[in-house]
């Protein structure tokens, strides 16, 4: 390979290596796995949102056909070394509720597990679960996050004596003075609708025990095999070294599989107790209550500005629903947005407070974006409110306040390494033809058209690539934020790239292959990416928070660097020259001043035979690197929505959707555009379609795919996607995260467009999701 040949794969839309098995039915998802002798688990769930468990009668279930065993929560107390973990106790005085895998004394949300049945088949387990008779004393329940703080609210966790979980604050700059001196202020209140993640594959788990050895293999539809192993050791007391966790093909996650669930602990403990393989597959309607939800946050945001529109300070008060228990990172989710309520604007004063509250609902936790869609929504909508008050163009108000110098330390205290918000704004404005849209809008307003037009902006920055370990420690997250990868050359020149991240649709196998193939100068087909198995991968931190490329991919790059460095010493030894006499490019070493070359792959063979290595060098060509990121990743950009609102019916149609994102260096533009499009779809869904609703007794009303509106292709528009590129300066690949940008940027773009369309009617805000009924009612009230 010629020395001048650089970056053959990075930057190219390489078709995915993952696809053939997924397209032909050869993929192996959790429900496709069958273990000889396995039995099935079914969970009996509370129909009440809040109820004392008076008795659990398992007699009929135990006598039913095919039943192996049945247990109530109290029967399993000897199985647990600890409760289900919360790894992010955000304050010193946070009130941590104990969370057993099965409720023992009380059920605290509709869907809380109270008993399990193990039977010889899926159907028999389900049949027998219906024979479990639980006697409940129903208690008053509360699902509204603000009502749960009221004096007369029912208390979920008696031992805590309150539903208040924590109060977390971040203050910087002189926000009080800046607000007192402000020529203009705006104060807005928003509610982040509760969302249900709905990965199309429900969860599932299988545990195969080797009882005599005390060994357990678990397959789980999870994003986090490594974290799961560590935490399940803490829950069950099973030695971490005896527990292997495998994430098979996983059918989407979006944060919902970034958790340690009761069913995983139950299958593991019961496989130990019964000595048999156990399988549990979640049904969709079960998933609606048993898998975490997202959002459910009341937001108050105030902006202070000078008369000329310079935003000086921001003040934020959040009331965030935890749900009935704290799942893995529940309390930290609103805090992940805590630094972003100033958006990409150069504010000086910052005053943030978040109150976490227990409610009788399914626990909330990370759902795509996790804290950052909430923050972006609040600041982007509030900037539009300020523009209306100042009677200035929302584009110009944004432009005036952009952060322009990088690295930029923001008021909230972190440092953005790179960005160019104006470049993406200008590109997006050109794509959408801003003046043309405004002209059409004016015409329609002029003639009183039934269908009004609105244009909405979201100029955003977000922080992802979780995260520098020291910062995680400082904000009381229990684990680190590093990741690890191993590069191993096999004798025939193929490469194993073994990573600590764990994909579920993101295309890591392809993206990582591109990075490795370029660095090592091997064909992409020669790279085999291996992931998702704690037995074979280096200790890693898994996949969430748009971290896999910005952290895991960098560790892979660094491992490849180590391999190249060792190969260089081997080549120098074989050429009988100094290392310094060799030039390396794209995996090929050339002896300076000659045409004598040797590739890394050839050095790998020499390393394997070990016949002629430098004195003291270990045979083999393999290296592991662990990378702790120096900073978060800070993607940003501009999203613009153009909506048409039917003022007679309230229906909202997205006419155009333009997204220009700055994602740093792009490894695979096809995959990146796919991530952006999918992210926008979920954000548009929050804005227009999706909401989990509870009734007065805290029963979930939107409890299946019929009543909860996951959009189909017919409800969504085409997205016009482009990019700008400022290289990330805090990692050697120059990459930024992409997994969540679309979900973060899009809700305020859509809702600002809607408010823009309705402002002539005196309607400036509609609650999400902006259903036709809500829009129509708002217009009727204003008329």
């Amino acid at each position: 390979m010629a020395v001048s040949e650089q970056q053959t794969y990075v930057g190219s839309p390489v078709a995915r290596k993952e696809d053939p098995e997924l397209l032909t039915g050869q993929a192996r998802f959790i429900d496709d796995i069958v273990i000889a002798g396995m039995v099935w688990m079914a969970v009996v769930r509370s129909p009440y949102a809040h109820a004392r468990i008076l008795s659990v009668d398992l007699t009929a279930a135990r006598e039913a056909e095919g039943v192996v065993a049945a247990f109530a929560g109290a029967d399993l107390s000897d199985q647990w070394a600890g409760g289900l973990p919360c790894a992010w106790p955000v304050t010193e005085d946070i009130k941590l509720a104990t969370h057993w895998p099965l409720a023992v004394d009380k059920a605290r949300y509709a869907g809380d597990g109270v008993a399990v049945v193990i039977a010889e088949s899926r159907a028999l387990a389900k049949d027998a679960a219906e024979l479990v008779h639980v006697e409940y004393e129903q208690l008053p329940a509360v699902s509204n996050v603000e009502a749960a703080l009221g004096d007369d609210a029912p208390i979920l966790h008696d031992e805590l004596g309150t539903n208040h979980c924590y109060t977390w604050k971040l203050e910087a700059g002189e926000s009080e003075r800046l607000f007192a001196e402000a020529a203009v202020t705006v104060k807005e209140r928003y509610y982040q609708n509760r969302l249900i993640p709905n990965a199309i594959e429900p969860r599932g788990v299988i545990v195969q025990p080797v009882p005599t050895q005390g060994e357990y293999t678990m397959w789980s539809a999870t994003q986090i095999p490594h974290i799961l192993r560590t935490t399940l050791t803490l829950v069950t007391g099973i030695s971490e070294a005896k527990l292997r966790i495998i994430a098979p093909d996983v059918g989407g996650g979006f944060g919902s599989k970034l958790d340690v669930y009761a069913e995983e602990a139950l299958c593991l403990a019961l496989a130990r107790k019964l000595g048999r393989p156990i399988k549990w597959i979640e049904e969709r309607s079960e998933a609606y209550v048993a898998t975490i939800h997202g959002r459910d946050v009341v937001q108050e945001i105030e902006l202070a500005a000078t008369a000329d529109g310079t935003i000086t300070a921001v003040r934020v008060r959040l009331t965030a629903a935890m749900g009935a228990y704290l799942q893995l990172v529940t309390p930290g989710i609103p805090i992940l947005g805590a630094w972003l309520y100033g958006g990409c604007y150069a504010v000086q004063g910052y005053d943030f407070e978040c109150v976490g509250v227990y409610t009788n609902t399914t626990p909330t936790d990370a759902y795509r974006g996790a804290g950052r869609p909430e923050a972006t929504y609040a600041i982007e909508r509030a900037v539009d409110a300020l523009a209306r008050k100042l009677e200035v163009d929302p584009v110009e108000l944004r432009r005036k306040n952009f952060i322009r110098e990088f690295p930029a330390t923001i008021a909230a205290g972190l440092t953005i390494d790179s960005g160019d918000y104006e470049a993406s704004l200008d590109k997006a404005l050109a794509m959408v033809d801003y003046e043309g849209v405004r002209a059409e809008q004016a015409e329609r307003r002029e003639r009183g058209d039934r269908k009004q037009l609105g244009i909405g902006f979201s100029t955003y920055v977000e922080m992802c690539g979780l995260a520098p370990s020291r910062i995680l420690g400082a904000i009381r997250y229990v684990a680190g934020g590093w990741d690890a990868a191993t590069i191993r050359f096999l004798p025939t020149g193929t490469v194993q790239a073994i990573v600590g991240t764990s994909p579920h649709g993101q295309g890591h196998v392809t993206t990582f292959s591109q990075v490795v193939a370029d660095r090592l100068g091997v064909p992409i087909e020669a790279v085999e990416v291996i992931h998702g198995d704690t037995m074979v991968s280096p200790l890693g931190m898994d996949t969430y928070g748009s971290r896999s490329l910005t952290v895991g991919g960098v560790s892979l790059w660094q491992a490849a660097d180590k391999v190249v460095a060792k190969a260089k010493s081997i080549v120098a030894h074989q050429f009988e020259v100094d290392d310094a006499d060799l030039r390396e490019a794209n995996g090929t070493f050339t002896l300076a001043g000659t045409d004598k070359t040797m590739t890394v792959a050839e050095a790998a063979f020499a390393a394997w035979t070990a016949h002629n290595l430098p004195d003291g060098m270990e045979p083999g060509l393999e290296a592991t690197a662990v990378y702790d990121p120096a900073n978060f990743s800070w993607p940003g950009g501009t999203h613009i929505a153009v909506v048409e609102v039917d003022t007679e019916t309230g229906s909202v149609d997205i006419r155009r959707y333009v997204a220009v994102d700055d994602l740093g260096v792009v490894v695979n533009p096809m995959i990146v555009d796919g991530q952006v499009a999918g992210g926008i779809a979920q954000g548009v869904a929050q804005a227009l379609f999706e909401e989990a609703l509870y009734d007065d007794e805290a029963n979930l009303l939107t409890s299946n795919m019929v009543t909860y509106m996951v959009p189909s292709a017919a409800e969504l528009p085409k997205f016009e996607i482009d990019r700008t590129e400022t290289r990330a300066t805090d990692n050697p690949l120059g990459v930024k995260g992409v997994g969540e940008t679309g979900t973060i940027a899009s809700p305020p773009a859509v809702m600002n467009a809607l408010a823009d369309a309705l402002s002539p009617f005196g309607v400036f805000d509609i609650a999400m999701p902006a259903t036709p009924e809500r829009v129509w009612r708002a217009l009727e009230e204003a008329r």
Partner: protein
Amino acid sequence: MRRVSLAVNGVRHELDLEPRELLVYVLRERLGLTGTNVGCDTSSCGACTVLLNGESVKSCTLLGVQADGTELTTIEGLADNGTLHPMQQAFHEQHGLQCGYCTPGMVLAAISLLAENPDPSEDEIRHGLEGNLCRCTGYQNIVKAVRAAAAVA
């Protein structure tokens, strides 16, 4: 138990089925054809879509016994000796899949769509695939893939 005769991907099977067995579990658990996935329990998501006598059906909505005497095509029956069906190839080239869980159903629904309307507009594709949910792609590249497959057909 009832004796049922099914031709699946060109292979005939004689099965004794319980009346309550859903077709999707007959395919997955009796015949080992696990490419057909289950995504919901309300016939909403379409992950389990297969072709029955050439038309797309949600196999979680049919009982196995109702399929007696029919010919079925599942995702495993599309590729021909390792060559992908044009629709599979289009999904691959246009990045019409991410996690791949909805993909078998989506591909079969798309094939059925083109059988009825060989040259659909973007809007017709979006409405034609209304019964199949994807949570990863935002449908953008699925629509492109179906257009591309229509162009080569």
